[in-house]
């Protein structure tokens, strides 16, 4: 499921250690949970743009929805890990989760949620 790992295995075989310096243990363990679950059942494509803040209504399975019901900090780490390991479906899911957290909020709420500073001058 991880294109990075697959390419490394293709290049060096399965006896070599695969270095993953950019992924913390806890996050890697969570990624493995995802991969194990989806090993034989690839998830559905998530429709864009999201039509609801409830991911299940956007085609995400209950399991996947619960899987990303985590702290924002961990969620962002997952995005980075999925990107680094090149696991498209996990990247899509985690990004959709963050998008669902943006959707439905007004501008001030968005700023608050993601620690964004309003830097517009009055005329802008």
């Amino acid at each position, binding site marked *: 499921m991880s294109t990075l790992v697959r390419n490394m295995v293709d290049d060096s075989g399965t006896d070599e250690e695969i270095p993953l310096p950019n992924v913390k243990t806890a996050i890697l363990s969570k990624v493995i949970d995802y991969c194990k679950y989806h090993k034989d059942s690839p998830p559905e494509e998530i429709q864009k*743009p999201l039509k609801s803040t409830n991911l299940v209504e956007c085609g995400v399975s209950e399991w996947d929805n619960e899987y990303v019901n985590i702290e924002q900090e961990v969620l962002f780490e997952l995005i980075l890990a999925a990107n680094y390991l090149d696991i498209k479906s996990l990247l899509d899911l985690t990004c959709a989760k*963050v998008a669902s957290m943006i*959707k439905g909020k007004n501008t001030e709420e968005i700023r608050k949620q993601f*620690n964004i*500073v309003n830097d517009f001058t009055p005329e802008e």
Partner: protein
Amino acid sequence: MRRLQRGHPMGVYPLGNALFDEAATRRRSEGLGDFQRLGDERVLQLLRSLDAKALGRCSAASSMLRGFTASEELWQVLGMALLLKAGEGRAGKSRDGLKGGHQLHWGGNSWREAYICSMGSTPAQGKMARVYSDVLYRSFYYAATELDPAWLATENLERVSNLSTQDFLERFEERSCPVIVSGCVKHWPALSRWSEESLVRRFGEIPFAAGPVDFPLKLFYSYAHQNMDDVPMFIFDKYFATRAPELLDDYEVPSIFRGRDLFNFLGDEKRPDFRWLLIGNKRSGSKWHLDPNKTCAWNAVVRGRKRWLLLPPGCPPPGVHPSKDGAEVTQPVSLLEWFSNFYDELKRHVDLNPAWDLKEGTCGPGDLVFIPSGWWHCVLNLDDDTIAVTQNYASETHVSSVRRFLSEHRDQVSGTAERDTLAERFDEALTRHRPDLLFASDKVQKPEATAAPAQNFSFWDHLRSTGKSLCFETPEEPLSKKQRMSETG
């Protein structure tokens, strides 16, 4: 276009410029907040899941987010969704039950402005704070970059003014040799009848295919004259014979090709797509590709000019990487990006390799280009309102390759709904009409290039050829930020 030369309308600049703006780092980290650590590509990916309202609310959050949410690719998707909905409405199959709904009007100079206008609002104007991002700047750069005259200078595509079918077969089709024939379409009424003004008058409300969507012709031209796309859309419509049948009266298949399409034996309903109307403005065009089903093709320019580059079978240019089975081709997003980054390298390679028979030429009104089966080619429209018609045909000369392709690459057969059975149906049709061809081998005299150029192109050679120096950061001595910046230039 000139508008783009004054700089990005939303104040986006390449990342390196941040070095000269003291407030840039703080503005980026404060303006992106938690999103900063994801990197620009991921932030854009997040935004792709948002609808227009959510994008609008994000754009008001900070100047960085305004720069990101202004990204044309986001609004192009939303605009194209409006076109798709309009298409469904016309076909009487509106899915969501939304009554009416908004139509896309081309107000303004970009997908973003057009979408906002179509919703009845006015796009924000005025002075914008600077946003530094290579990711955001890239597509703008290729939308604005000028065409280098060096790309258009060589003319080594052979030109003939007119010739008999026999001559054409012996000199070109059977030698797998591209050629420009300048005399065989000059009698077409299309040459005087087809232009934006007259086509819009006759067919302005009729939708024509441009990629995945249909554009009413008048709307298409409005878009074509005012956009910021690095990959400008163009009309490439295989249905024009049913949508605007009067167009068929304005041209005819040139005599050297008439009656020689073996797929004709399959009957109109069951044969692969074979004719397209092409309309595009300057800078639009087709990236490097092979034509489907091992067919040959002719492409006649009726108005404007097209720049052609062609390479023999088995010789994809640098920057273009077909997958092992040939089903997918990886190459830069826009053709101009390919030209900017790989044209010079191709020329250097051609100088060293005689097998790389690169053909370059410009076609004007009345010129027809012949593309032999299996040749790589790309096309760039040089003028606004460049109009052409093109047809593909399964030639007797290449019948064996066609049959083999249909049989061995069924998943790559294109232009027909029943791709799995095309091989058998074609053989059946040949059995009935031309059984001699079932035992024919290709008549092509010149052997196909036997080099495996995909392997000739090592990434290392490419790196060396670009003449750039590379530095690698070691853990003990991280490069200063300034040094790192200079390598990405």
